[in-house]
Every structure is written in C-alpha cells, then in structure tokens.
C-alpha cells in the first residue's frame, strides 16, 4: 500500500470517526432499512413453511389405504413413508379397526400408535391422558356416553368366536366358553380388560371409537394383520404433495395414497394470499426505507458541498472526489448491511414468535443479499448528490457565508 492509498484510508476513516454523530444518523437509517429488508425477507421465505406447519394442526393431509382388498403391511408403510423428505414428514399414524362388544353393545375398536397420534391429529382434545401402553384405552366421547364410561373405569371388550378343531385355547389368556343350547356349537368369549385413561373429543366420527394399542387389539382378535388406514401429515404445499402421491402410488404397490382435499385446497389458497400480502408489504416498506436512506445520505452529502468545493480548489479531480465520498458511503452501506442483516434475523424471529409461536428458519443467503442491497442503495443514494456537488464551481462554493 503506498502513501496515497494510506492517506485515502486515513481521510475516509477520519471522516467516519470524527463526524461520528452525522455518521451514526446515516448508519442508523441504513441499519433500519437493512434490518427491515432482511427481516421481511426471512419472514417472506418462512411464511410457507410456518403456515404449513400451522395447517398441520388441522390434521393429516395424506392418507394411505390398501390398494387391493388386503391391508397396508408394515413393509409397505415403511416404504411409503421413506419417500417423504425427513424434514417435511411431521408424522404418520396407522389405524386398525375391529368390531367388538362392550357391555353387550356393539362398538368399533381402533388400534393405533399413541406415540404418533397427536402428530397427525393435533386437534384432538383429550380429558385425562393418552394411554401409555397395553391395558389402557382412550374412549371417544360418544362411545363413553353410550357405555356410561368415565376416566379410571375398567372396561372389558368382548370377542366371541366359534371353537373349531384348529382353535388353540392355550394362546388365549382370559376367556369363557359356552355352548349354544340349540346347535351345540361351542363358543369362546374372549375378554380384554382395559382401564379408561382418557375421553376423546373431536367433534367428528372419532368420538365413536375406542382406541387401544395394536398389541391389545391383536390379542383380543387373536390375529395379527396390517392396517386399514394410515394418516400422514406432511409439511408441504399442494403441488409437492401431489408429486409425493404420484411417486408412492407408482412405487409402492400395496398402498393407494390420496390427498385429504378439504385440508390441502384451503391451505394453498390461504397461503397464496398470505404470501402476496407479505410480498406487497415487503415491497412497500422497502421502497419507504430506500427513500429514507436516500434522503439521509443526500442530506449528509449536501452538508459537505463546501468541502467538495475546497477539495476541488486543492486540485482534486471529480473522479477522485467521487471515489472518496463513494467509498465512505459504501463502507457505511456495508457496515449497516451487516448489522441490519443480523438484527433482521432477530426481528423476524420476534415477529415469528408472536405470530406463529415458532422461531424463524435462518436463511444464510439473505445475509449477502441484504449487504449487497444495502451497499447498492446507499451507493445510489450517495452518487446522485455527490455528482451534483462535484459539478459545482469551487469558486462559488468557497465564496461568502
């Protein structure tokens, strides 16, 4: 670095440091602009993700059913869910339905996985708690009313079947045998004793069911089999969901997957509207902050017309004055951009916390974009007043006052 470059830096630094109060005002304007830019940018890019996470609270958006007459096997299910991107798959819950009797009234038992059920049905409202293992049951509100059940009650589900030569009664832990007096056929009444841990309210058909573990339902029916239906919750937009469905239907033979239309259609209309709203707001705020930065920089430069005239009188060429003032402006723009990009992240996070109650995803790409935009806007904002100041006759500027 030669002496000339050192002097150049010395002047720029002196101007930034010794004119601190002016520079802080300008920097503040730039920081505010950059913060809003990076913050709104992050919000804009995060809205679809945030919103689809929100929409997931309306329940599953894809269901798997068996493609033929059979059931969805464990292998098919594994293969099916492996097609989703890990970070998009919010959860999946298989169900197996069986008819049974309780207190001699017909009921539908639904075997499920209580660990994942809240991920696909976050709207479930449970009084009491979810069952934590075998021997416990969650009873739909309507079923509970019909059967007169309450939390803490014991309930026996009953499964009757005819005893044939093949029946291996040793497998059954708890049963009663009776003979039909008319036909002489022997029946086995298999009972499954369970404790009610919670009552389920959803406002939908789920209230009719009695939920148990898969193990309990298998031991009651004495049969292991696949699932009737699998609910899947995926944090993705409609188009992407459709792609997934296509892939699954053509790659996994045992599964027929489809969209839960009601959920996904409204999701994408709301999202599109919301996105364009955020986009418009971003643009407007951006335009306003640009104007604000530009006016501030214009004022800062206008103040220095005399200095520009003096430098010209000392023999500065227009080009070198532009270079000096621009590098000051660009430096400010860069520093303001860096500060703003970081502040913008926190700003977006606060907004996201308040609106969506979840933190924002950090988008590293927005940092260079914010810095570049900030440098560009500040540069442009400086260039115009510098150009006009530089064209002024030094004799005029230096005169009088």
């Amino acid at each position: 670095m030669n002496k000339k470059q050192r002097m150049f830096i010395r002047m720029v630094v002196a101007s930034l440091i010794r004119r601190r109060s002016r520079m802080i005002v300008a920097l503040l304007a730039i920081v505010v602009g950059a913060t809003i830019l990076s913050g709104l940018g992050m919000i804009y890019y995060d809205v679809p993700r945030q919103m689809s996470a929100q929409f997931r609270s309306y329940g599953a958006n894809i269901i798997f059913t068996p493609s033929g007459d059979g059931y969805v096997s464990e292998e098919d299910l594994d293969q099916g869910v492996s097609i989703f991107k890990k970070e998009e798959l919010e959860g999946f819950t298989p169900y197996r339905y069986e008819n049974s009797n309780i207190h001699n009234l017909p009921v539908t038992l639904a075997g499920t996985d209580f660990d994942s059920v809240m991920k696909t049905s976050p709207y479930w409202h449970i009084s009491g708690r979810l069952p934590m293992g075998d021997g416990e049951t969650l009873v739909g509100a309507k079923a509970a009313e019909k059967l007169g059940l309450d939390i803490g009650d014991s309930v026996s589900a009953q499964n009757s079947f005819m005893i044939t030569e093949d029946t291996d009664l040793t497998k059954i832990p708890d049963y009663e045998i009776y003979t039909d007096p008319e036909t002489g056929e022997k029946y086995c009444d298999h009972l499954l004793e369970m404790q009610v841990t919670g009552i389920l309210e959803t406002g939908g058909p789920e209230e009719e069911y009695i939920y148990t573990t898969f193990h309990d339902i298998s031991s009651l029916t004495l049969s292991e089999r696949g699932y009737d239906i699998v609910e899947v919750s995926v944090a993705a937009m409609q188009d992407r969901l459709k792609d997934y469905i296509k892939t699954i239907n053509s790659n996994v033979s045992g599964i027929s997957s489809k969209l839960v239309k009601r959920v996904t259609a409204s999701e994408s209309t709301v999202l599109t509207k919301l996105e364009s709203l955020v986009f418009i707001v971003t643009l407007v705020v951006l335009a306003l902050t640009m104007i604000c930065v530009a006016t501030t920089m214009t004022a800062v430069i206008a103040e220095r017309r005399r200095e520009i005239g003096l430098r010209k009188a000392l023999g500065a060429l227009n080009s070198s004055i532009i270079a000096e003032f621009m590098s000051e402006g660009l430096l400010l723009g860069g520093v303001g951009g860096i500060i703003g990009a970081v502040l913008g992240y926190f700003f977006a996070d606060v907004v996201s916390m308040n609106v969506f109650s979840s933190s924002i995803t950090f988008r590293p790409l927005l940092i260079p974009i914010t810095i570049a935009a900030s440098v560009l806007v500040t540069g442009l904002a400086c260039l115009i007043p510098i150009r006009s100041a530089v064209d002024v006759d030094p004799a005029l500027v230096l005169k009088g006052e």
Partner: protein
Amino acid sequence: MSLLELKDVSKVYGELHALDKANLTVEKGEWIAIMGPSGSGKSTMMNIIGCMDRPTSGQVIFDGRDISKESRKKLTEFHRDKIGLVFQQFHLINYLNAVENVMVAQYYHSMPDEKEALEALERVGLKDRARHLPSQLSGGEQQRVCIARALINSPQLILADEPTGNLDEANENIVLDIFKQLHKEGTSLVVVTHDPEVGEVAQRIVRLEHGKIVSDKKNENFTE
C-alpha cells in the same frame, strides 16, 4: 517571460461587469498586492488567476500557456501543479487535523508525506498544533494552516485572498513574515487585501474599482 498575463479579461454576471477588461502582468518572483473597495472584483480576479473560474472574455496566459480556453479538468491539473491558494475564509476540512489538512494538498498534487507536511507547519510556527482539529485552533492558527497547505507543493505562485482579513495584528505580522520569507525564496505572491498595512509590504500595488484596474504602481516603500 512573465509568469502570468491577463489580457483584456472580463467577467460578466448578467448586467454586472465584475471584471472589466483587466490587464495585468505578474513577473516571476514578484509580490503584488491587489487592493480596492468591497465588490470591486478582487476575488473574481483571484478566482480567474487561480484557475477556479473562467473569464467571460479575454486571455489568461500562465507560464506562456493560454489557460482561458482549457477544459475544466486541464485547468484543475494546471492550478494544482502551479498555484497555492489561501482563501478569504479559512477553508479547512473540519474533521481532519492540521497536518492532515496539509497532507490533503499533497494527496491531490502527488504523494502525501507526513514529514514534509509537519515541516510546512513548523515553518508557519504550528508544529505543536499539528494534531489539533480546526475547531481547536484559533482563527490565526487556522489561517497559518491554510498557508502551510498553500506552500506545501512548492508552487510558483501563491494566491492569497484577504489572508489577514480576520486576524489580529500579532497574527497578521506572523503571516506577513511568512510571505516575506516566501518572497525571498523566489515564490511569486498575489495578495488581495484592503488593509493598507498589508499592501505596503508588497512590491507592487494594483488598485481595482468597479472591475477596472485604476492604478498599477511600484511600491516606493518596499524593502527587501
């Protein structure tokens, strides 16, 4: 060859002839005082000589070269190399300290050199004030910084517009001593003033009135 020649130079602002067909010759090493009442065109003349302004008509010949027709950029380069300016107001860059203000002139001329700049400040008696900002300097000290800045690039001509206008007598004498020193070293000086005492020390006194040169006399009282 004369250092500088103004031939029928006029500067017209609308109806007003700020300078009206002025003819002036400055020899190398000469010390000229330009005097006249306020508004008579002294600063206008200085600006034209200093290549900061161009005449409406007439010729300005500096070192044998007609500079009245040159482009602005050429003019800037020319005056940077040949002329040191001292303004009517003390124009210093307020966020640079004394020595940095002097170095700015070096910066635009050739190469900044802090040692040389400090030497120039020493010449005007401001060595111990080199790190002060203009706001921390008195008016007289500021004017001396301006003079140090004007002479840093060893110009052929120093143009000073009212260099003592805002100074008390003590400071005025310091400035005049520096001028005497520069004159001895062979620098040409053109000093605008309406202070007779400042005029008295010059070799030649040129009087302006309403843009016209009304007298141009050798100063009988001039002493080397």
